[in-house]
């Protein structure tokens, strides 16, 4: 059939099974939006308030569903507004296809109105990108974009389409999606070597990263932990990749990891890392990380071997496939004494936040109450900073794809868009965005999207009127010189939320936490709701490994 470029874009989306896209219209994508109108019974388009919100929504959709997220923006500022969202997805290996319009071919390179070289701009933050200069290449390019985004270590791909290409016609034939690009499976010696190292170990430490979630390897990881008879720590990106109610779970490892994980890494004699890139937030001082024991790293991206830390055994491939094989080969191990020791540490070093003044609300109380009141498959998005760490520390994540957070890029303003995208992709699940007042201020315009599309979710703002994480660093390392971190804005969040069309609640004392959250969650099944939860500005995220220190030596307490 002969179709316009814009219609080909729609057909290619349908080929991939895409039924939802996020975006914002504009001049260079008029043809695409006209086609979206034509295909509106098959492709749902969610228009955000700002392109950045659309990119985060596509990202949250992808993280929560496992499917590739799609975002559409116009040329120039529309395209540049996607940049933070694309970079966020890139750092966390989230599959995304960004489609941007550009000016007509004959206007390219002439500094035309709303022209920007978005392929040049996004080269460092995409797995790959394209500019389509011939309508005959359009379908194949889009198919490749989805193939690349969803293969191996996943990530964003951008396709830039000049406006006239979307208006030109050419012959189009439907075709099946391209199969994922092939990846390696380790040779037998790697497995034998791994088994040999495991059989020698008395005190193995199992550590899981985001790769476990993106390769859908959570069941294999759980089985492996049993066979290995080892305690488990997860990175921020693997929250929910291992059941945190399991006795083996030690908490996070890294800058804000638990003391149990720190003690375990100090005392272990084998470190097994699955689907992780050893980010500096986990390693802390790389020279002091697990140097007394060998490391086995299971990872799909070869470039992550020996990048930040040298490992003794590299096992390259998909985490799920490798763990399956290891589970088949590995005889049941027994490390009762070691597991008892870890249990004793867990008992001795629980995460605890004390009330500072009578009846003050602690973030711990809020997150634990939220945990109690929500289902195991509720989706928790977060912003970045203290709110993010508290959510990771005090909410018990039990299933993959329930925790959506910007780990690598640390994008404040990520959570709201991501939460909306997640709810659109999972209409039957509870969705909560845990925010701080700083992050909330960054992209609160997306409350308009929540109201316009009547998206049921809860925006939970932990409001301490400061940029808490940066302030915490100023406390520790800058002599309490709180440069620009005391926000003290007069914004009345509940009134603001109501102005956008949301229901809104406030929490000011500890006694209000449970009843208000209970009511807000019930309302958040019907429509968008905001809760403004007042907390003390001096609550710190602890434990904390200061810059340059070993991950084995976190600070457990600090003064206000």
């Amino acid at each position, binding site marked *: 059939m002969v179709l316009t470029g814009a219609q080909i874009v729609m057909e290619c989306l349908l080929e991939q099974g895409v039924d939802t896209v996020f975006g914002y219209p504009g001049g260079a994508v008029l043809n695409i939006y006209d086609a979206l109108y034509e295909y509106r019974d098959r492709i749902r388009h969610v228009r955000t308030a700002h392109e950045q919100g659309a990119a985060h929504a596509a990202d949250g959709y992808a993280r929560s569903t496992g499917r590739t997220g799609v975002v559409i923006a116009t040329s120039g500022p529309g395209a540049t507004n996607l940049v933070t969202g694309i970079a966020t997805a890139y750092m966390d290996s989230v599959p995304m296809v960004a489609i941007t319009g550009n000016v007509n071919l004959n206007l390219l390179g002439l500094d035309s109105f709303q022209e920007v070289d978005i392929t*040049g701009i996004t080269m460092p933050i995409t*797995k790959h990108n394209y500019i389509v200069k011939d309508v005959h290449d359009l379908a194949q390019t889009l198919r490749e974009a989805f193939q690349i985004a969803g293969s191996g270590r996943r990530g964003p791909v951008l396709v830039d389409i000049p406006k006239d290409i979307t208006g030109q016609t050419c012959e189009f034939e439907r075709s099946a999606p391209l199969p994922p690009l092939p990846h390696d499976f380790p040779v037998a010696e790697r497995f034998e070597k791994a088994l040999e190292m495991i059989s020698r170990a008395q005190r193995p430490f199992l550590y899981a990263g985001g790769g476990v979630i993106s390769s859908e390897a959570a069941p294999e990881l759980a089985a492996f932990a049993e066979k290995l008879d080892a305690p488990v720590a997860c990175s921020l990106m693997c929250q929910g990749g291992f059941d945190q109610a399991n006795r083996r779970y030690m908490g996070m490892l890294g800058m804000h990891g638990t003391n149990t994980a720190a003690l375990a890494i100090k005392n272990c004699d084998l470190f097994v890392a699955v689907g992780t890139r050893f980010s500096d937030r986990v390693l802390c001082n790389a020279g002091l990380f697990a140097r007394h024991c060998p*490391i086995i790293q299971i990872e799909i*991206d070869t*470039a992550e071997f*020996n990048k930040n830390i040298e490992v003794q055994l590299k096992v390259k491939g998909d985490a799920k496939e490798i763990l399956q094989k290891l589970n088949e080969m590995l005889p049941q191990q027994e490390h009762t004494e070691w597991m008892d020791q870890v249990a004793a540490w867990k008992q001795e070093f629980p995460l605890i936040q004390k009330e500072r003044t009578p009846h003050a609300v602690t973030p711990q109380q809020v997150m634990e109450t939220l945990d109690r009141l929500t289902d195991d498959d509720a989706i928790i998005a977060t912003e970045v900073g203290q709110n993010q760490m508290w959510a990771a520390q005090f909410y018990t994540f039990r299933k993959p794809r329930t925790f959506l957070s910007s780990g690598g890029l640390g994008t404040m303003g990520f959570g709201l868009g991501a939460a909306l995208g997640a709810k659109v992709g999972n209409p039957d699940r509870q969705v909560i965005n845990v925010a701080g007042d700083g992050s909330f201020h960054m992209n609160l315009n997306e409350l308009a999207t929540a109201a316009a599309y009547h998206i049921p979710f809860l925006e939970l703002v932990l409001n301490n009127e400061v940029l808490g994480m940066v302030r915490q660093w100023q406390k520790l390392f800058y002599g309490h010189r709180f440069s620009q971190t005391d926000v003290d804005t007069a914004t009345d969040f509940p009134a603001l939320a109501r102005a956008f069309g949301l229901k809104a609640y406030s929490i000011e004392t500890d006694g209000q936490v449970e009843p208000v959250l209970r009511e807000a969650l019930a309302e958040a099944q019907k429509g968008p709701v905001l809760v403004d939860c007042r907390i003390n500005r001096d609550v710190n995220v602890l434990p904390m490994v200061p810059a340059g220190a070993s991950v084995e030596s976190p600070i457990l307490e600090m003064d206000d």
Partner: protein
Amino acid sequence: MEYSNSNPSPVKEYILSVLARNRAGVLLRIAGLFSRRCYNILSIVAAQTENTEYSRILIVVSGDDRIVRQVDKQLSKLIDIVQVDVLDRGRIVEREHLLLKVERTVQTSEKLVEIANVFHANILNVEPDSMILELTGDAGTINSFIELYNPYHVLRILRTGAMAMPK
């Protein structure tokens, strides 16, 4: 037993031979990767291969062994790159092309020609006050050639960067 990060090997020059799809922007992708990952490019030579759909790009990198392995793996991740080989300098032929303009006086003229003859370099142009020479050779030959002309006031040097082919 201590599993320390192994000591970095000495910084050397490595030649990478990269086969890439001949698509727009492929050089920019490579150059951008080097820049953002803080790798040093000493020279880069790129041209179409016998098959016009592909380009061959020769890159001379300075770094230790660990860095060159990272460069190799990061380059290999680029979609448009088909193959990356870190060439073993003992098993390749290596050639670089040089144009050198040197100041010429009545007193130095004879000496300048003499050096050129020793290296079988071509004299491409002679002006009353300058001379342009051309030489093809491996990096070592080119370097000694330039060194010998240095005392005579070299006005300009143009090097193509290394080309290399496995034997």
